[in-house]
């Protein structure tokens, strides 16, 4: 082993993002100084991204079990039982920093990475979602970032051939220096054919397959755990380039290899590539692993051991084969034209041993790398509570019609057609609802059955900012509500926790309280967490992003014919509002977009009411009683009515409320509410009353205007123009 002067190494450690005490800990665990390769391995395994050192204690609060949970957090993706011997595998992951640096490739490789997590477990990916947060539309970088990210997501997903069926897009100056690109993938597998990453026995061949290794993204994992500053441009590693064609071949080859019965354990090479995949496989199996780096397929000459271990070249897999099954591998890799090699074997040593050019270049025990990484209980301070706003605290608009137009054309509310028309939403021929169709969740059929999966992604960062606890609850509740609104039974979530620097107590306070709220909602709604991802240090020059714990929800429809959307409203129907309205305007869209303020407490989430109202609505859909439903969220009643009207091509008239002023009634964002269009309004009210669910008729469908008589009226054409024009005009400008 080559000796390095200790002082220089300690300095290098700091450059790799390790704190002095962490370096000291490495020396203690090894009983010696590490060499450069070993230090690289430690630095990526102990990075925030791989070790969850700041968040792990908090993540333990999530409920992760449930009748339908087959595999919770800890593997590449979560697995839930959907009956009939089938399982759904899903996860969400961020690619925030890479997408800011190179939006197309950053977003594309984000999609590629999350798909690999899903097919690594034996599932065929069947749906993609994306949750995007950009800076202020007026910021000079925003337009180019939107164009690049959207093209990258489409470019990758479309080529691989997995439909992108849902997502969300927000704009806020808080993301000017740190955009968020969260991608979610959902797959289907046979429940008894799930593959895991733990190496089962010593002496088995370790096979590398997929694309060759280059110098891509070295220190990507540590970069994902560091703040930006003006010098970041200099530090950036070679950008990872996605090859969706290689990914498509990799999916087919992986699933074929699994079907052949040759696979004992398997793991994709994601962040920290060969290092994290080999360490995790051996570590989880309680074994050791030996790699011969000369055997690694290489794209460039002269790659060092250090570079190979840290490379984040895309579209690569590591598999441990059952004894004597190398020939199956060779046949399948050759068919799909993939590079492949046996690069090592599992051992009993409990060590990671790397050989390169005839020398042992690293030999470290796996335990400290894998399960003994430092863990922090970071100090935190509770965020200051914001005052609850009464309707009287918020001015009414001078012109309601104008206020409604402002709302439906606000960047967060305007149609995202410009985005989702660039996504293939129909490949696989099982898409029933997608971004275009007017439904609260994307729906894909479970191929060949009457069942379908419903998927959604939600969080309202402005609520989390004002009150992380209520905002955390709300994110989970909204995902649950969206699945409920199409008639699906919500099953489980994945989450993507995007925050600033956890070493700052106020940021840690956001993390702690948001997780408390999410966990509370998960418990109350029986909606466990089965997978997730944490992205911290989303800060530039000390300014953190709004706290953004994205929730990806999955639900099941037993019979997709019994479902609801909000595109089927027609004249003659009553509009029935389920749930209670107090006129909560704090943190509302109205407050921000019309009144120009971002203050107050967010609407509180009453989880018992949420559950009661939702269960009622879902039962009404599943029994066939109603089929036109929309949940109320951003923009309140008027936004829901406007979206229903536009999707259905049918007008709507809303009555006034006896007690509330019009702005609180129309724009309030009280939680746990749904708007239903039905010809049998009275029957629905009676059913609701019998179950103690607040419900009232709030208007009627028909005509070609959206109106609240005596308050405002707008033609659908004007409304549509305002809603549709903003994004294409912005992107064209």
């Amino acid at each position, binding site marked *: 082993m080559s000796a390095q002067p200790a002082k220089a190494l300690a300095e290098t450690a700091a450059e790799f993002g390790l704190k002095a005490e962490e370096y000291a800990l490495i020396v203690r665990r090894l009983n010696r100084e590490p060499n450069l390769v070993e230090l690289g391995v430690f630095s990526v395994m102990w990075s925030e991204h791989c070790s969850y050192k700041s968040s792990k204690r908090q993540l333990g609060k999530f409920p992760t079990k449930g009748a339908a949970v087959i595999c919770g957090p800890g593997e590449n993706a979560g697995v839930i039982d959907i009956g009939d011997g089938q399982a759904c595998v899903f996860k969400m992951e961020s690619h925030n920093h890479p997408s800011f640096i190179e939006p197309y490739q950053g977003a594309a490789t984000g999609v590629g990475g999350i798909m690999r997590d899903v097919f690594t477990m034996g599932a065929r990916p069947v749906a993609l979602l994306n949750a995007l947060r950009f800076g202020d539309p007026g910021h000079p970088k925003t337009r180019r970032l939107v164009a690049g990210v959207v093209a990258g997501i489409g470019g990758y997903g*479309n080529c691989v*051939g997995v439909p992108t069926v849902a997502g969300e897009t927000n704009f806020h100056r808080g993301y000017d220096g740190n955009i968020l690109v969260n991608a979610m993938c959902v797959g289907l597998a046979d429940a008894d054919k799930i593959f895991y990453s733990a190496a089962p026995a010593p002496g088995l061949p370790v096979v590398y397959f997929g694309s060759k290794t280059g110098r891509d993204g070295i220190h990507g994992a540590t970069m994902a755990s560091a703040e930006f500053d003006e010098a970041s441009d200099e530090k950036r590693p070679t950008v990872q380039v996605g090859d969706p*064609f290689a990914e498509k071949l990799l999916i087919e080859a992986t699933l074929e290899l699994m079907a052949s019965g040759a696979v004992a354990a398997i793991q994709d090479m994601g962040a920290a590539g060969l290092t994290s995949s080999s360490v995790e496989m051996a570590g989880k199996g309680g074994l050791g692993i030996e790699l011969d780096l000369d055997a690694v397929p290489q794209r460039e000459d002269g790659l060092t051991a250090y570079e190979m271990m840290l490379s984040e070249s895309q579209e690569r897999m590591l598999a441990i084969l059952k004894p004597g099954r190398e020939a199956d591998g060779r046949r399948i890799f050759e*068919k799909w034209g993939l590079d492949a090699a046996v690069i090592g074997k599992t051992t009993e040593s409990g060590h990671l041993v790397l050989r390169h050019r005839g020398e042992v270049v690293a030999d470290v025990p796996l335990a400290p790398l894998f399960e003994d990484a430092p863990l922090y209980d970071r100090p935190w301070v509770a965020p200051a509570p914001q005052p609850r706003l009464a309707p009287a605290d918020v001015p009414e608009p001078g012109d309601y019609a104008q206020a409604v137009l402002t709302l439906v054309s606000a960047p967060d509310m305007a149609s995202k057609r410009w985005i989702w028309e660039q996504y*293939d*939403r129909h490949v*696989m021929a099982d898409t029933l609802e997608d971004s275009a169709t007017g439904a609260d969740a994307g729906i894909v059929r479970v191929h060949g059955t009457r069942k379908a999966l419903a998927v959604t992604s939600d969080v309202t960062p402005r609520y989390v900012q004002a009150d992380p606890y209520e905002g955390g609850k709300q994110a989970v509740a909204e995902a649950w509500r969206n699945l409920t609104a199409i008639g699906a039974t919500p099953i489980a979530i994945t989450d993507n926790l995007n925050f600033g620097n956890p070493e700052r107590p106020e940021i840690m306070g956001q993390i702690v309280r948001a997780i408390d709220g999410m966990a509370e909602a998960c418990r109350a709604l029986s909606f466990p967490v089965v997978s997730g991802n944490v992205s911290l240090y989303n800060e530039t020059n000390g300014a953190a992003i709004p706290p953004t714990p994205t929730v990806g929800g999955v639900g099941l429809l037993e019979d997709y014919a019994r479902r609801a959307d909000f595109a089927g409203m027609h004249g003659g129907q009553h509009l029935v509002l389920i749930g209670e309205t107090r006129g909560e305007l704090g943190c509302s869209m109205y407050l921000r977009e019309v009144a120009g303020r971002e203050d107050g407490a967010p609407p509180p989430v009453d989880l018992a009411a949420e559950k009661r109202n939702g269960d009622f609505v879902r039962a009404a859909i599943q029994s066939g009683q109603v089929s036109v439903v929309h949940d109320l969220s951003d923009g309140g009643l008027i936004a829901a009515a406007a979206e229903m009207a536009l999707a259905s091509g049918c007008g709507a008239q809303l009555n006034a409320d006896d007690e509330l002023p019009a702005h609180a009634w129309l724009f309030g964002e009280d939680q746990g509410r749904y708007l239903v269009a039905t010809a049998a309004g009275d029957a629905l009210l009676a059913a609701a009353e019998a179950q103690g669910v607040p419900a009232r008729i709030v208007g009627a469908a028909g005509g070609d205007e959206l109106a609240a008589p005596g308050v405002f009226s707008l033609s659908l054409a004007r409304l549509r123009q305002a809603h549709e024009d903003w994004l294409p005009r912005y992107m064209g400008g």
Partner: protein
Amino acid sequence: MKAAVVVFPGSNCDRDCRTAIERSTGAEVAMVWHKETTLPEGVDLIVLPGGFSYGDYLRCGAMAALSPVMAEVKAAAGRGVAIVGICNGFQILCEAGLLPGALIRNEGLKYVCKPVALEVTNAQTRFTAGYAGRRQVTMTVGNGEGNYYADEATLERLEGEGQVVFRYVQNPNGSARRIAGVVNDRGNVLGLMPHPDRAFEPELGSADGAILFQSALASA
């Protein structure tokens, strides 16, 4: 009745085509890997599916057009077997010289995925006989390079001979003369950009694509 779907590396609508043919016609469908040098005995319909063969790198369909199986596809075309290329399959047929023209970058430069209304310009081909009496059908497009190009003389000839089979009601990508699908002069090779394989059941928003597969196999 027997159909074959060719699978190229990067095809991603191969399964969709199989399902669409099975559900709309009940025909037996064989999946044929692009390296094969024979086609199934007695095949009545060959489908080149959509997707991104070879990642669409260099030019869409260029590398797939050189696949070993394409020699067999050409021979089958010569024997009068019905051949349909959908989306990337259309691009491959053009690159292979089985259909005139080429598909270039969309006018808007972006990938576009949306439902489109199509005029059935010629309901007398073996692929469209089932549309007789229907002026308009709906299918979705999903492509970045679906902009049909041919020189003026070729376009005139195609129009004159009734080889333009489908036309967009509203042009989504800048295609010459709003062309969405064409047949060869013998009438047994069809290429189209919209996806009948995503429009074979009402649940999918349209069942109009089923008729295309039914017609193609009924004519065999």
